[in-house]
């Protein structure tokens, strides 16, 4: 999938290409006055002009240019006060669905889905995890049964962000229970407004619901909305998840930028709460947090120098552990105040709000950091097997038909 990414090379050297792009944006703006054009109309036109994501192919919003040039275009549009495509509202669509559609979709699917996805007119969500299939995603049970040129889908999905606002979802479903589990899966795009799709908020320990459960009851999916071949679903989904992992590494922290900054500030502001034992813990956590920041920066430097290493595999393990230990420390530091909680009311936030809420929230929310996006246990298996070359777990489930596996 990473190799299928377009725009690895461009026709022009970068400075010239940048100048050319700026010329194109200027010409586009001359033809479409941002102040006078309907925002959706403007974005659709921008897409059609190949100025949406420049590393995508011509006709699909781009010009097959290097990805690094995207910032040139974005800056030029932003400077002109052009309407934004609200990438934050469609993270799964842009980060996971779009590259998958590009790599595995038919020409017709690309034409149909990519433009409204990019403009934000269609929000996408991801229907992968199930109550019975978490770490072992390939064991999922949601069934898709063929019926002529359509599929009838039934099952339950879980941990679905944005499902309550989404127009479409990428769906992994079992099309052949007689096959071993990785081979009986097929990948679809499903209309979230279709009959039989029911979205319920999934309330979590913090009191709120960032995620949803999605119940699928005899949902009709046209075969035209299948992405990839029948039985190829695992391969397509793996590519999707690889895009997720690539996306995670792209952020940067300043010193004391993360959770440790909150704890350090609280320490500085609260001399009356300090004790020798807490001081030891804080210094240890501060050192670990700063070193993990340095490790992240070092990884970025290596990538920039063309020396990718396996070090990234450990970053999420460390991140989760530190978030948990630091927030644990913070609640203890607060003492009496730590026994109070902001609000248990059920809400629908867009995501975790580590810095807008209180210490108790941070403590609870960070518990999920070692579960979501790959449990720490699974990540350690990956490090042990893929990085250290230790023998894999004995697997009894790879070759038997899925229907015969214990569940």
């Amino acid at each position: 999938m990473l190799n299928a990414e377009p725009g690895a090379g461009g026709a022009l050297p970068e400075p010239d290409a940048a100048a050319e792009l700026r010329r194109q944006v200027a010409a586009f703006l001359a033809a479409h006055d941002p102040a006078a054009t309907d925002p959706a109309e403007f974005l659709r036109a921008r897409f059609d002009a190949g100025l949406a994501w420049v590393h995508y192919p011509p006709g699909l919003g781009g010009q097959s240019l290097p990805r690094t040039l995207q910032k040139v275009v974005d800056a030029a549009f932003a400077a002109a006060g052009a309407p934004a495509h609200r990438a934050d509202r469609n993270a799964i669509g842009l980060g996971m669905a779009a590259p998958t559609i590009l790599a595995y979709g038919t020409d017709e699917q690309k034409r149909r889905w990519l433009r409204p996805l990019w403009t934000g007119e269609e929000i996408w969500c991801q229907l992968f995890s199930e109550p019975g299939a978490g770490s072992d995603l390939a064991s999922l049970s949601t069934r898709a049964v063929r019926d002529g040129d359509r599929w009838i889908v039934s099952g339950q999905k879980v941990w679905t962000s944005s499902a309550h606002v989404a127009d479409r979802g990428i769906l992994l479903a079992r099309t052949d229970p007689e096959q071993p589990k990785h081979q009986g899966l097929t990948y679809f795009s499903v209309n979230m407004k279709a009959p039989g799709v029911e979205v319920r908020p999934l309330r979590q320990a913090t009191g709120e619901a960032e995620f949803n459960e999605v119940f699928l009851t005899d949902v009709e999916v046209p075969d035209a909305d299948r992405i990839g071949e029948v039985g190829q679903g695992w391969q397509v989904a793996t590519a999707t998840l690889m895009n997720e992992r690539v996306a995670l590494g792209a952020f940067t922290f300043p010193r004391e930028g993360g959770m440790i900054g909150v704890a350090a500030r609280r320490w500085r502001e609260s001399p009356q709460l300090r004790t020798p034992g807490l001081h030891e813990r804080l210094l240890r956590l501060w050192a670990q947090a700063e070193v993990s920041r340095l490790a992240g920066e070092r990884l970025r430097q290596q990538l920039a120098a063309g020396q990718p290493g396996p070090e990234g595999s450990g970053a999420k393990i460390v991140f989760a552990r530190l978030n948990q230990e630091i927030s644990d420390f913070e609640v203890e530091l607060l003492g009496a105040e730590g026994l109070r909680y902001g609000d248990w009311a059920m809400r629908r936030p867009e995501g975790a709000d580590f810095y807008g809420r209180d210490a108790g929230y941070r403590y609870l929310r960070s518990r999920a950091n070692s579960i979501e996006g790959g449990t720490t246990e699974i990540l350690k298996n990956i490090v042990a097997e893929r990085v250290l070359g230790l023998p894999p777990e004995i697997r009894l489930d790879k070759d038997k038909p899925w229907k015969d596996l214990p569940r």
Partner: protein
Amino acid sequence: MEGPAEVSEGAAARERDARLPDMTYREEEVQLRAAVRSVLDDRADWRSVLARTEAAQTYDTGLWQVLAGQVGCAGLLVPQELGGAGASFREAAVVAEEAGRALAPVPYLGSAVLATAALLPAAGQAPQARELLAELGAGTATAALAVPFATAPGAPPEPTVRIVPGPAGDPAGTYRLSGSVTGVADALPADVLLVPGDGVPAGLFAVRAAQAGVTMTPVTSLDMTRQLADLTLEAAPASRIAAGPAAGAAVTAALRAGAGMLAAEQLGLAERALEITLAYVKQRHQFARPVGSFQAIKHRLADLWVAITQARAASRYAAACLAGQDPDTPVAVALAKATCSEVALLAGQEMVQLHGGIGFTWEHPAHLYLKRAKATSIALGTPERHRAALADLVGLPAP
């Protein structure tokens, strides 16, 4: 090869060991446990505990009536001449373990332990203390000790409530109190508040909750199963239970007993969290195997079980020392609260993690155990404060 003990410093040491109090569960304690568990299994399954956290009344007074009145949990520490069971902290700890297992939303710790223990020293002198103890023991009233729940036994804070002048018509023996106390445990269902108050002399006062001048504000609490309250008094009528140093000593004794019993509660919590987690990992399959068949998971659960065996010894030792008024009680309570706090927190955190996603949802008991574990690790003194107390008690001075 070496076993766990080359050292045995002769007969003197062995004699000292022989003086260790009985840390097992005796027959009558096993029976008490069964009686309490049976009630809680019936009336405090986790779904009803969860529902209660969002009810108007977050305490289950009906359940408390059964535990207090029928099973006799409220009067365990009340002397027989006052109608109580005249039992000891050994039995009280057994009830605390069960309350912890179920996260039972009842004011057992606040009323039957903290308030009762604060009243006991005054029972010889103050008739009000005797009357109140009789009421508490019979379950006809509940009380709460009005100190912040985070207070450690060794460091009772300065009173935040003062004696103020009352109107001319006050009957003799009536005091008036003003001030506030934040984050009081088990105060919401309490009929009587035991309030440390400043004045000449300072004292411990009993204040009826249902009267003018007493305001109790529920606190949105990290531990949803034991909701705290902020208390405000405005010239509220009060009677004095103890005065001068006796008042401070009563509060310290109550906090120490409370910390010991809270450790027992944490032990019960940890045991139950492990049980639920074990049941889950045996039944939950991933990769066509029970999750509990993966060695890394097995070892973590073994670690937790070993930690619980240690916590049980610490908790039983504290209960036995409190029961026997052993001079080693301050050490025993510090050990128990420090140990059980950390083990309960480990159990709660492992419960969430080993359940995976489901353990992070509202509709699963894991978060209730986690929140109780985290809150109780702060309540009545953090592990660090209890270990710091050991420095003086056993002679390991700070730098």
